[in-house]
Each structure stands twice: as C-alpha cells, then as structure tokens.
C-alpha cells in the first residue's frame, strides 16, 4: 500500500499542482484537480493522492511502484511514461500535469486501458518459447559472449508496460500491426538457440502486420522506460526474415 503521498509533507512554498485527468472511456473529458507539491513525488503519487483524498471513483492501475510490473503507464503531458518512476519535477509544465490513458488501446475507464489486444499480439508474434515436439536431449551451452545471447540480452528486460505500443505511429495507422513490444519479444526468441519454432515465428512476424511495416520512427526506442531499442530488434527481424527467403521460405 502506498502511504508516501499522505505522510510526506508538502513542500514549503511549493504551491499546488494543477492536474488535468481524463475521465470517462473513449468519450469523456478532462477533470481538473489541485494537489500539493511534495518532495520527490512521482506522477503515480499524484494520481494515488487524488484517488484517495479527493475522488475515490477515479480508475487507474498500478502494482509494484518500483518499475518492475509495467502496469502504471500513462500519457503524461503528451508523452507515454511509467508513472511510478517519473518524478513530477521532471515533467510538470508551469505547475500543470495532464494525464491521459495510454493511446492505441481501448479505454476501460478514466486512466485504465484494456491490455488484452496488446497481449494478444504477443501471442500472434509467437512471443513464447517453443520447445519442440521432443524434449532436448541435453543442455544447450550458451556462452554469455555469444552474439545470439547478446542480441537476446539487449531486448530481454521488457516489462510489458505498453509505453512503446502507445507511442507507435504505425499501430495508430494500422491496428493490426503487432507493435514494438511483441516484435521485440519475438526477436529475443529468434536468438534463443534452444527454440524449435523459428520458422513459424518468422512467418508470424512477416506480412502487413509484421516487422516490415515498421517505419523506423524510433518512438518506441525514444520512450521505452527500460532503455530498450525495439527499433533495432525489428531491424533484426527484417534481416532474419530476408535470410529465410534465401532458405526457401516466403
């Protein structure tokens, strides 16, 4: 339970923050709140304070508060962010915060979005380990210095927060597009030497919904709170699917 917001004292002379919060679902509007500025407060602290002190009907989502679970992402002053690790001082503009639900996902209520389409695309991109029909006869030795291991390491720390999906222009143009997170996950698995489902995975990430639709705008890479670079993972998938053509695939 987050008690920081109510026990930490307001900054002397800090004044109030004006917080515009999206209320409603797809149709709705902004409601304005005023909350005290507090030392080191995060955007999530502000939302929690509003919900607990001013309007208990406000819907939002969080769990870990420490940047692990990926559930608290919102659009803050126009940019998608993980709110638990974003300090107000970093993002407020003249004492104003505007909070909206993530883009490119259906709004359930207020700041909470439906994540189902996001995770469905992980499944469509074969973003799961495929052990094959027969269990492996032996351990697969994977050296930490192996190129495949390094490629997988570069993308493995994704916390599924949906920030990249919200930031992606291609998703907003083409709702079928698998999106940066699912493609990044597929790329880590393409580099898993134990995986037996590569051909089906490379077929799944090709086509009009797949990696070839990426415009390399790099919004995903710009906004990823974990500092990952899905754009480069998608470029890796483009190379891997091109090599697959030479091997006789389509």
């Amino acid at each position, binding site marked *: 339970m987050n008690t920081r917001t109510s026990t930490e004292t307001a900054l002397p002379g800090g004044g109030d923050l004006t917080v515009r919060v999206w209320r409603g679902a797809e149709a709705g509007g902004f409601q304005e709140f005023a909350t005290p500025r507090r030392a080191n407060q995060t955007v999530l602290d502000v939302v929690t304070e509003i919900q607990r002190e001013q309007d208990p009907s406000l819907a939002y989502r969080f769990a870990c508060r420490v940047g692990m679970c990926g559930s608290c992402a919102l659009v803050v002053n126009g940019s998608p962010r993980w709110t638990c690790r974003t300090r107000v001082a970093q993002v407020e503009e003249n004492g104003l915060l505007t909070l909206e639900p993530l883009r490119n996902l259906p709004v359930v209520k207020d700041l909470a979005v439906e994540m189902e389409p996001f995770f469905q695309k992980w499944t469509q991109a074969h973003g799961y380990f495929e052990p094959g029909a027969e269990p492996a006869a032996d351990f697969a030795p994977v050296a930490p210095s192996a190129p495949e291991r390094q490629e997988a390491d570069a993308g493995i720390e994704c916390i599924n927060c949906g920030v990249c999906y919200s930031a992606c222009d*291609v998703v907003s*143009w*083409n709702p079928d597009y698998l999106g940066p997170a699912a493609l990044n996950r597929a790329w880590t698995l393409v580099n898993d030497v134990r995986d037996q489902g590569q051909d089906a995975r490379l077929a799944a990430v*090709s*086509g*009009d919904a797949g990696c*070839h*639709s990426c415009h390399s705008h790099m919004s995903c890479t710009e906004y990823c709170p974990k500092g990952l670079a899905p754009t480069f993972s998608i470029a890796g998938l*483009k190379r891997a*699917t*091109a090599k*697959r*053509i030479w091997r006789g695939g*389509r």
Partner: protein
Amino acid sequence: MTPMLYLAQRATALILAVAVSVHLATMIYAVRGGLSAGEILARTNGNRWFLAFYALFVVAASIHAPIGLRSVLREWTSWRGRSLDLAMVAFCLLILVLGLRAAFAVYRP
C-alpha cells in the same frame, strides 16, 4: 508487406538512387550546356546504353512505386485486400508500359 515485397522495394531503391542521380545530372548538364531537344535526340538515337539505362530505371520505378503506394494507401485509407493488390499490379504495368514506351521513343524517334 511480405518479406519479398520488402526486399524488392529495397533492391529497387538501390537502383533508383543511382539512376535518379545520373538522370538529373545528365539533364542539368545537357540543358545548361545549351543543347537543343533535336541535338539531344540526335545523341540518344540508336544509343543502346541509353536504352538499357532507362529500361532499368523504368523497371525499377515500376516495382518500387506501387509497393510504396500500397503501404501508404493501407495506412491512410481503409483500402485493403485483393482489390488493392490488383490495383497496384495495374499501376505497376501502367508505369512500365508508359516508361518503356517513352525510353524507346527517345532511342528511336
């Protein structure tokens, strides 16, 4: 976009980068050098290198442009499916025919 279309668009982009540069540079050089249309045609007439260069240019453009246009239309309109693909094949053939006809006309006016 399938991987094959993706590769075709990238490969033709490589050709177009060179072909467009040569085309523009030659045009500017010829016009600024004071050559008339008749003098230019006299030089291109019967020149097989000229024909081969522009035939390659036209083929590359006829592959490259419809693939890109297909992506633009898919992203900016709701047009999808077989009708879009067939329309793009028609657009490819249109550029191919018009372009080759023009290149051949200058080769043998």
